């Protein structure tokens, strides 16, 4: 029996000593398990010459070498290569000095799943050469129908194929042809010279769709041949190719092709001596979107205003100059010759039951491989985006896919596994359209996108129906209002009401579908509309009139980033730090350890460039203030006699206390630990945040009239109820200091210590006993902190993470530094069991993972690879998967609402717990979150507590983001513009970090800070106050 391929395994002495026989056994077992043993034969051979990289495998006939294999690799290798036909690149052999082997075309994802019918000659033939077209089976189908087939048989064949209109509506092509033929024949009985017209609709107008243009440019003869076949089948006397004037290259090539076809006798009178005559005219349209609608297109050719007319009569009965007319889209025509050549049955086997064949999509937007792809119908959106499209650039998250252009809608990530065909897309509220597929990343604003399409359709509405003309404009205006931060909640219903009216009352497809972008985005992204309207937030950072500058808008503290950066550029550092301090009580801390959401939205960082290093600039200012001894002006209002208690001295507590202190309240912070700062003191290691910085900042907070009582645990040293009675209000900001369990057997063995506990002990200077083989589990900042801390204690440290590096939630720079310091990171592994020996941890059993389906957050879920378990010697295991609040001592009389995540339930706008006078914020409410979020909670809670004590209503007002003041931009010199590069942050050498906790990152030198500040685009200056 013939085998599909041979796997040749080297079993020389060298390879056997490297485990080649184990590999062979594992391979054979795996092949048997997958029932592939009849397809794949394993052959032993002698020295392969590559045995230093042994064990090695060679797969023939593919000619692919795999090297340095272990048994663990085998299941994945078999599944990928032999079952799915995807060679595993990471295991392939590469000769020295080459890091990219050139893959075979059909192995690379972009091309692998494509199947070319309409695009069969793309990139292959010279479009200007009729000879090359003919050499590639061109005009064979025309010769076949003229020689061997009756016209009605041609119509029948097309009908049997199930081909549907590729222009968007998906009407069965064969049926359309049948109607046209019937009317043409009927008319001909009365008048043998009566005309019948065949039209190719190349008025491609959807933004982001370019397949029609590409087909005409790449393979013009395929359209000519198909139209001649169609004319023969339907009794067509003349044809028109209606192409928009914006496609000059397509127009030039189609003209040349028509000329050549005439010369070869393939157009004109008596084609191929069959007695059948047909010729073509190219009609250049002026580029109105409505001309894609067939009745408008016909009027355009007739020289009339391109406006649609009521159907029926359909063009098949009364079309161009009142004659029977058939219109098909370019891509539909491009399929015809192939169906004739290979038969309807062949065509039906491709694609889905109701949508046979392939579809050409133009993949555009935020996607790595933008281009034109032709795939069988039924392919999923996920395959389109991730396999063919190669994913989203710059590590951004996928938000959705817009299909069908201005007539379609957005498909959200949750429907990514949807197989694409006409029916399924319609069910989700969008349409196939001509096949434009615009991939949207997280930086796309859905409301702004809908606005863009409505702007387009309101411009392109022909104006005949008032519902479309006025409706599109009205929809656009409402969207514009929402994007300006002036929307009202009632606008959402109004949008829907107008949308349905426009759909119902408009005559042609343009009006009937133009509300789709609004309706589908309201269906799937209603929250984003509400964010704009109610909270004046544009989460994507796009709507200019709401965000002013994306960095400021993204900052939970509303820091005036462009202002202080502008002042640094002017070298006015003292003014700049004052701007920072206006909204941030802990600049030295934020300048060191903030997760800087501002930078992820920075426009200077768009498209893979480096964002302005906002965090480092803030630190530069904070350090400047400290070093120059600039006195921070803290002048609290006179004491108002009211008292507020704060539980916990982390960032939320400090910020709340600070702002209440400024208002004249007497604030006492209760802290259970011996030091103030919460996670700032005992979570973040000192090499990232030195203690003296923390102390400096806390001293300033105290100046606002805040007392901090350390070593005072609420529930033990003082009772919660007592505080409630003694103070006018309480703010609970106890943080999240309890590490979550892994949930694996043996987790309670000595030698397993949670990251929070480990970091706390080290932070407090307590003795920590850890072994010399340390493994940290997790991929967040706590995992990196724990690993770098253990490394500083002189231990061998490895981090095991169940996903891949790109998905690590930790700050990327921190991961980078950890690797520099010698921390090993193993990806796609998860612990399954802690193994004890002699009452202590001795080893951990792991399981390898692979990335499977996407979860709701848009990240691929790690799923265990069967049979991939392995055991590693470990004496200290530090789980760092997440933290939860420990509120056992606070629960008290059980009045506080506790969520299923063991956090305190609050009103998310006011942070009020509902229990008399008790507010809560920070990690105790959110679970582990960022310092900046905690600071923001503290500040908002302070203003709510103030209202509460004054007896005012607890409501928040939201406003659009605006800079606190206008800072002029500095003029850059020619030289500065030319030599503009990102400033590098100085760090101390890796060798100097051993066995100490000295700060690793240093501050910008003045010159570097100014240089970096000058890179800022100053987006804040684009919005004038009049806006």
């Amino acid at each position: 029996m013939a085998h599909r391929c041979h796997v040749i395994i080297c079993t020389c002495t060298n390879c056997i000593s490297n485990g080649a026989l184990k590999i062979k056994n594992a391979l054979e077992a795996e092949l048997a398990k997958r029932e592939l043993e009849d397809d794949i034969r394993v052959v032993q051979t002698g020295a392969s010459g590559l045995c230093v990289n042994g064990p090695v495998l060679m797969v023939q006939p593919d000619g692919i070498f795999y090297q340095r294999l272990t048994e663990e690799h085998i299941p994945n290798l078999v599944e990928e290569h032999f079952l799915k036909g995807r060679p595993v690149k990471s295991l392939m052999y590469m000769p020295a000095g080459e890091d990219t082997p050139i893959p075979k075309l059909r192995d690379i994802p972009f091309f692998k799943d494509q199947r070319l019918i309409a695009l069969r000659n793309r990139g292959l033939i010279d479009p200007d050469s009729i000879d090359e077209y003919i050499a590639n089976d061109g005009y064979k189908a025309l010769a076949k129908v003229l020689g061997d087939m009756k016209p009605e048989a041609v119509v029948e064949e097309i009908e049997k194929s199930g081909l549907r209109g590729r222009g968007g509506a998906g009407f069965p092509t064969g049926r359309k042809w049948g109607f046209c033929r019937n009317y043409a024949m009927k008319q001909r009985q009365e008048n043998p010279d009566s005309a019948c017209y065949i039209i190719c609709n190349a008025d491609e107008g959807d933004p982001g769709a370019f397949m029609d243009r590409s087909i005409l440019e790449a393979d013009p003869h395929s359209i000519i041949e198909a139209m001649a076949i169609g004319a023969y089948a339907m009794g067509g006397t003349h044809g028109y190719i209606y192409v928009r004037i914006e496609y000059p290259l397509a127009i030039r090539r189609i003209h040349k092709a028509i000329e050549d076809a005439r010369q070869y006798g393939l157009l004109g009178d008596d084609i191929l001596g069959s007695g059948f005559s047909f010729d073509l005219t190219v009609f250049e349209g002026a580029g109105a979107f409505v001309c894609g609608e067939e009745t408008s297109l016909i009027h355009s050719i007739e020289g009339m205003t391109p406006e649609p007319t009521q159907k029926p009569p359909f063009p098949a009965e009364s079309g161009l100059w009142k004659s029977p007319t058939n219109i098909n889209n370019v891509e539909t025509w491009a399929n015809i010759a192939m169906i004739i050549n290979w038969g309807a049955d062949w065509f039906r086997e491709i694609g889905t039951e109701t949508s046979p064949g392939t579809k050409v999509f133009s993949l555009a937007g935020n996607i790595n491989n933008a281009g034109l792809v032709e795939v069988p119908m039924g392919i999923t959106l996920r395959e389109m985006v991730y396999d063919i499209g190669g994913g989203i650039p710059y590590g951004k998250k996928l938000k959705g896919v817009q299909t069908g252009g201005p007539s379609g809608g957005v498909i959200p990530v949750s429907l990514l596994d949807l197989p694409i065909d006409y029916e399924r897309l319609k069910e989700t509220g969008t349409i196939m359209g001509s096949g434009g597929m615009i991939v949207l990343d997280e930086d796309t604003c859905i409301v702004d996108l809908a606005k863009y399409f409505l702007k387009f359709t309101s411009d392109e509405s022909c104006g005949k129906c008032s519902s479309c003309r006025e409706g599109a404009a009205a929809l656009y205006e409402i969207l514009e209002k929402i994007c300006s931060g002036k929307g009202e909640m009632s606008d959402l219903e109004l949008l829907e009401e107008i949308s349905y009216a426009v759909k119902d009352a408009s005559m042609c497809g343009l009006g009937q579908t133009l509300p789709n972008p609004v309706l589908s985005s309201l269906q799937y992204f209603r929250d984003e509309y509400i964010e704009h309207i109610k909270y004046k937030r544009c989460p994507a950072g796009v709507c200019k009139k709401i965000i002013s500058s994306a960095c400021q808008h993204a900052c939970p503290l509303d820091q005036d980033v462009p202002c202080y950066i502008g002042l640094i550029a002017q070298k006015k550092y003292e003014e700049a730090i004052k701007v920072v301090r206006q909204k941030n009580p802990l600049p030295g801390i934020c300048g060191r350890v903030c997760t800087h959401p501002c930078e992820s939205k920075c426009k200077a960082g768009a498209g893979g460039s480096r964002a302005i290093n906002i965090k480092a600039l803030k630190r530069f200012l904070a350090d400047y203030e400290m070093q120059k001894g600039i006195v921070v002006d803290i002048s609290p209002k006179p004491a108002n006699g009211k008292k507020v208690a704060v539980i916990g001295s982390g960032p939320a507590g400090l910020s709340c206390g600070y702002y209440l202190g400024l208002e004249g309240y007497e604030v006492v912070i209760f802290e259970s630990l011996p030091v103030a700062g919460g996670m700032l003191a005992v979570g973040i290691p000192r090499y990232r945040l030195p203690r003296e910085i923390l102390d400096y900042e806390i001293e300033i907070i105290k100046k606002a009239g805040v007392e901090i009582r350390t070593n005072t645990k609420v529930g033990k040293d003082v009772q919660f109820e007592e505080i409630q009675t003694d103070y006018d209000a309480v703010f609970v900001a106890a943080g999240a200091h309890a590490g979550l369990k892994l949930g694996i057997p043996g987790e309670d063995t000595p030698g397993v210590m949670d990251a929070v506990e480990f970091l706390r002990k080290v932070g407090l200077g307590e003795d920590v006993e850890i072994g010399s083989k340390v493994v940290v589990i997790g991929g967040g900042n706590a995992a990196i902190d724990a690993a770098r801390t253990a490394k500083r204690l002189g231990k061998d440290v490895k981090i095991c993470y169940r996903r891949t590096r790109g998905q690590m939630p930790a700050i990327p720079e921190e991961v980078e530094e950890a690797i520099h310091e010698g921390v090993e990171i193993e990806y796609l592994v998860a612990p399954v069991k802690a193994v004890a020996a002699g009452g202590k941890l001795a080893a951990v059993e792991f399981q390898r993972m692979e990335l499977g389906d996407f979860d709701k957050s848009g990240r691929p879920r790690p799923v265990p690879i069967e049979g991939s378990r392995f055991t590693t010697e470990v004496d200290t295991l530090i789980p760092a998967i997440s933290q939860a609040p420990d509120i056992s001592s606070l629960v008290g009389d059980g009045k506080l609402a506790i969520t299923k995540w063991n956090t305190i339930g609050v009103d998310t706008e006011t942070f009020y717990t509902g229990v008399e006078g008790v507010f809560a914020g920070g990690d105790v409410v959110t679970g582990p979150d960022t310092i900046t979020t905690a600071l923001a909670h503290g500040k908002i809670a302070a203003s709510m507590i103030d209202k509460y004590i004054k007896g005012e209503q607890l409501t928040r007002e939201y406003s659009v983001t605006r800079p606190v003041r206008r800072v002029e931009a500095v003029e850059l010199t020619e030289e500065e513009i030319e030599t503009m590069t990102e400033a590098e942050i100085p760090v101390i050498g890796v060798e100097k970090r051993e066995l100490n906790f000295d700060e690793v990152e240093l501050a910008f030198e003045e010159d570097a800070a100014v240089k970096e500040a000058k890179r800022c685009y100053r987006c804040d200056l684009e919005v004038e106050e009049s806006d």
Partner: protein
Amino acid sequence: MKKTLHIREGEGAARAKIVVHMGTCGIAAGARAVMAALVQEVEKRDLQDVLVNISSCAGLCSREPMMTVEMAEKPPVKYVDMTAEKAVEVLEKHVLAGEIVKEYALTTGNERVM
């Protein structure tokens, strides 16, 4: 007729065919400069057995200008992100010296038609 498509065999056969992908996407990305440089270089070196021709979009518009090099009896190799300089380098190394320029090459082989 097939022979205009493929490299001729036997006496006087061409050793290579270079196709520059000149759809709107390719031209917008700079395919004309690539084409001009190749034509000039072929003329300068009087390479009568190297065919330079055009074709249209090869599908991967984001990597245009693209170029396909087909050596006699070898599968075609697709090059991406071409410039005039890179194209001449490919002509020298791949076409004349027989070494695929891996740095610029994307893939080898033909697409699945039908």
